[in-house]
């Protein structure tokens, strides 16, 4: 959160309409993602389940209502129907080729594309992995397709933690990344109300706020509204006490009538969210993150090229946990920095947060030569003098703070050298405290040919746009993962 993010939310609230936070789409979208909607009941994971899934906005491929998930036969049969649909969709992306890296000589798998699963909210993704992923692990007497479904979802569940990944995409999260709504962060996890902030067509603010309040009452998440569960409980009771197949089927239908309509609405809502996201052109680095997604998927596809599904550990080994944590950290840093470099609207928030500063180029010196700390020869180090409205937070008082020029193409790095107060101009605002910053460009400036022109406005940020690789641990059990000495009870 920064002042601008807060302000955009305030404006959205004042308007009764969402405010764009991004001018580009920072998640890759495939042509035909699989939308999956799931609901359970608040606080009770084995009350009726409902799953709706498919790739066609108008006709879901399948819908499953499991009236009594505690009944193993019913649960496994229902989940098998979903597993069938999921594996059908994923199988189109499992073919891979081994490609040799010409530099390292190492072979790695490559797939043509990767699947994309879209769910209404992040909690649905987690519930899905719990219910149809982990919940199907090591169970006997189910068709093999269920075990494959478990393997795929467990893998996707691990992938879900990576920032900026698009293999399993919660629609509400993606929408609120690109638009600021006038509701709280927690309320942003509710897809119907987020959609209403974006799409309400009422002419007045009060009308739009009423639409949003009405949408908020719908539950498209992984859990139903507990207040409505009383009727459902009676139907479940009737289902469980039915003594003949006809009565049971009738009760099952009654349960389906109760749980299915909201999930069908959620299914349509996901496609509506996708349509809204598609109105934005894709950001250049979104494609790069999708490539990383495809590479990860190809590894999984290779593991799946076996007669039995791959196995996953419940808890990672310590060294594995450390390299996972490092990879997640890298992904987070990348997803924080790359959109800032791509998108002026996100850059504005970085400026507000103090991660970037902007100013007018007063002078450039492209002939300056210096010996860099790691070098032994004099090389070109172009110098820029920039006039900022306020004293920049980045490199504040510290010489040699690393900064990156926000420019398309190859990244240009530099360092701040001197920050000095500048003379005021007539055009300055009364609150301006103008400063000049001397910046030395250190890399990516193409021997001084790629520098900003005098008089232009440039922006520098401390956020590193280059994807870097996770650090691999070198010891078997890094200290944060050494378990405590067990205390005797």
């Amino acid at each position, binding site marked *: 959160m*920064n002042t601008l*993010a807060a*302000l955009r939310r305030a404006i959205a609230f004042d308007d009764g309409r969402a405010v764009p936070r991004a*001018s580009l789409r920072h998640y890759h979208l495939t042509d035909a993602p699989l939308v999956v909607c799931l609901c359970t*009941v608040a*606080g009770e*994971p084995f009350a009726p389940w409902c799953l709706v899934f498919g790739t066609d906005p108008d006709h879901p491929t399948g819908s499953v209502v499991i009236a009594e998930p505690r009944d193993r036969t019913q649960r496994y049969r229902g989940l098998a129907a979903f597993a069938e649909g999921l594996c059908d969709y994923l199988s189109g992306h499992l073919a891979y080729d081994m490609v040799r890296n010409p530099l390292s000589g190492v072979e790695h798998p490559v797939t043509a594309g990767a699947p994309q699963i879209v769910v209404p909210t992040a909690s649905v993704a987690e519930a899905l992995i719990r219910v149809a992923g982990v919940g199907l692990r090591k169970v006997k007497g189910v068709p093999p397709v269920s075990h494959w479904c478990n393997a795929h979802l467990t893998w996707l569940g691990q992938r879900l933690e990576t920032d900026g990944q698009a293999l399993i995409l919660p629609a509400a999260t993606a929408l609120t990344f690109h638009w600021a709504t006038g509701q709280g962060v927690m309320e942003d996890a509710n897809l119907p109300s987020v959609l209403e902030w974006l799409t309400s067509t009422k002419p007045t603010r009060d009308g739009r706020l009423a639409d949003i309040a009405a949408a908020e009452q719908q539950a498209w998440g992984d859990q*139903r509204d507990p207040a409505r569960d*009383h009727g459902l409980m009676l139907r479940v009771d009737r289902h469980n006490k039915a003594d003949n197949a006809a009565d049971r089927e009738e009760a099952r239908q009654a349960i389906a009538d109760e749980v299915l309509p909201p999930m069908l609405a959620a299914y349509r809502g996901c496609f509506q969210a996708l349509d809204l996201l598609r109105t934005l052109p894709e950001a250049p680095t979104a494609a790069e993150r999708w490539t990383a997604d495809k590479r990860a998927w190809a590894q999984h596809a290779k593991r799946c090229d076996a007669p039995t599904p791959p196995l996953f550990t419940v808890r990672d080994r310590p060294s594995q946990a450390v390299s996972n944590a490092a990879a997640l950290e890298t992904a987070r840093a990348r997803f924080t920095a790359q959109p800032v470099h791509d998108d002026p609207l996100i850059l504005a928030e970085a400026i507000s947060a103090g991660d970037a500063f902007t100013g007018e180029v007063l002078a450039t010196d492209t002939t300056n030569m210096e010996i860099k700390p790691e070098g032994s020869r004099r090389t070109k180090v172009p110098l820029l003098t920039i006039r900022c409205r306020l004293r920049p937070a980045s490199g504040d008082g510290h010489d040699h703070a690393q900064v990156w020029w926000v420019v398309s193409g190859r990244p240009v790095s530099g360092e701040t050298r001197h920050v000095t107060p500048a003379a005021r101009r007539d055009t300055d605002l009364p609150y301006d405290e103008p400063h000049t910053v001397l910046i030395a460009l250190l890399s990516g400036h193409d021997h001084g040919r790629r520098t900003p022109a005098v008089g232009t406005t440039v922006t520098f940020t401390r956020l590193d746009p280059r994807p870097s690789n996770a650090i691999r641990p070198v010891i078997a059990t890094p200290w944060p993962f050494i378990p405590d000495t067990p205390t005797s009870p």
Partner: protein
Amino acid sequence: MSPLALVRGRQFERTVLADDARVLGKLVGEHFGVSAHPLRVLDIGAPVASATAESTPLELLRLRAADTRREVDALLRVAVPSSVVVHPVLTMTMPGSRSPVFLEPDALALVADEDGRLVCVEVKSRPTIDGVADPATAGAAARQVAVYVHALRDLLADLGHDPARVSTGALLITPWNATNIAVGHVFDVGKRLGSLARQLARVARIDGILDLLPDGFTLDFDAIVQTLSPDAPEPVRAATVAAHIRRLPANYVPGCRSHCQMSEFCHHDAISTGDPALLGTGVRDHLAGMADLHAAARLARNASAAPPDGLTDDEQAVLYAALADQAARAAVQDTA
């Protein structure tokens, strides 16, 4: 919580405590290394002998608390191993309050090691899936048990026993996957106990808080309605109660909506006043100096015009954020 979840919770607890708590005894034995058969079970939740048909729920709680006190004392003096007290009632007094708070742990078990220690047992119906207990449930159970352990230690100190005989290790019992089979997890609440003690030590005294209320303020619904004529229509009654409640300023944050019954009332008020806390604590902190959300939006809309003199630091921060925003939107327009 859904009624389905509540029903399931009761069912599972009955399963665990059925047949003289056979399942519970087995799990206690398994996890605390004692053979727990035969188990002596004392059910304090069963109808109390001294209770009459007219006993109010509060009186029943008092009677059960007294029973618990007696049974725990007897248990620790005789140190009968493998005893279980089911549905005990513990009491805790908050600073400055006259009446105690009643706590109802699911069960207390006496473990027969050399000291004969007491262990709190908590039964939850959220299942353990694939060997891992639901993290939210386990966290909530740990917070809950820390309070029980604290209250139980107070009780022991009061009875003249060593408070350390209450173990900081507690047992969480949950169903295994979709079944009714119960599994146990031992967890330690030592750290939470420390932080709970610190919290209780610095909690504001209730009588001090009551002094801050406006004169003649009450939250007694009947007392408020009595000030009206008996035939006052429903909207008038509702408006009177609402006006009365509004005499207290609300400290609304979006998180209130997940646990407080009053939250919709405060939420509604926050929308009509444009309170920055409506959008969360982050927004509230960043727009701290603004009167309300509308004022922030107005300042942003007029940012490109000559800014007024005498803006506070907070307003200046909003102004510069708005200028950065406008510059960015202009840049997007240019490239499009």
